[in-house]
């Protein structure tokens, strides 16, 4: 396929896929009870954003590589995020013996 040539997929369809993926991720992040799954859902939302970035890299008004490079940065930051997030999770688990989000309400007490 390479970097040139027409892409017949309508831009709107890819964006719609991204939007739906985002909403699914959001719903997961808001309702999952396991902290790990909340983190995973957030990854899903980041992926939805990446889909949009890559799509616009090719199908934007002036196609260029910036979108792809941005998505690379996003992937890197997401990797860092999940590493720190899971480390936090382990630390919390050691202290409180739970990975349930609802138990993490120290803020309230």
């Amino acid at each position, binding site marked *: *396929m*390479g*970097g*040139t*040539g027409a*892409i*017949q*997929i309508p*831009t*709107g369809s*890819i*964006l*719609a*896929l991204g*939007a*739906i*993926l*985002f*909403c699914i991720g*959001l719903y*997961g992040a808001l*309702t999952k*009870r*396991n902290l*790990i*799954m909340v*983190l*995973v*859902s957030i*990854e*899903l939302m980041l*992926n939805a954003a990446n*889909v949009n970035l*890559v799509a616009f*890299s*090719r199908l*934007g*008004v*002036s*196609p260029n590589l910036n979108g*792809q*490079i941005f*998505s*690379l940065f996003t*992937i*890197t*930051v*997401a*990797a*860092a995020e*999940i*590493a*720190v997030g*899971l*480390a936090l*999770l*382990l630390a919390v*688990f*050691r202290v409180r013996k*739970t990975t349930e989000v609802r138990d993490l309400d120290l803020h309230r007490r």
Partner: protein
Amino acid sequence: MSPLWSAQMIAFFLISLFILACAVMMLSFRKVVYMALAVGGVFIGCAALYILLGAEFVGIAQVVVYAGAITILILFAIMLTNHEATEPEEPWTVRKALAAVGCFLLGVTLLFVIRGQAWPQGDPSVDVNQGMSNTLAIGEALFKSYMIPFELVSLLLTVALVGAVILAQQRKGDQ
């Protein structure tokens, strides 16, 4: 070939279906381990989509980082904490209902916005890779135009690595 039924379109539909199916499965599974695996499916589907859009490097990176590293990391985390964990059957609470309604409305709104807009379809004559291979082109861009962000991200990764090690470390006094 009509644009609607080109090979690309068919591939796109299949990939989309796969991605959404995996995502919905992730939502509906009860066992945490299955959820993690379903998410891996989503990541791989996205990678396929990137390759379909001509972003081979990003696609491969997606497979390596997301589908490979992150999914494995998640699985490890599950093993280390509570690998038997399941999402219990939960009654519909007000919060859950609100979350569902909110996400649904947000999605519908976004779709309306997307539909109500005329999107550019790209310029077929422009080569985003400027005649090079995609990997080479990205390498050129990263080390020329994006030098400083690139270094910053490497710094960020180092910090995250150190931070993760320190946080996950077993400390004296922790029981």
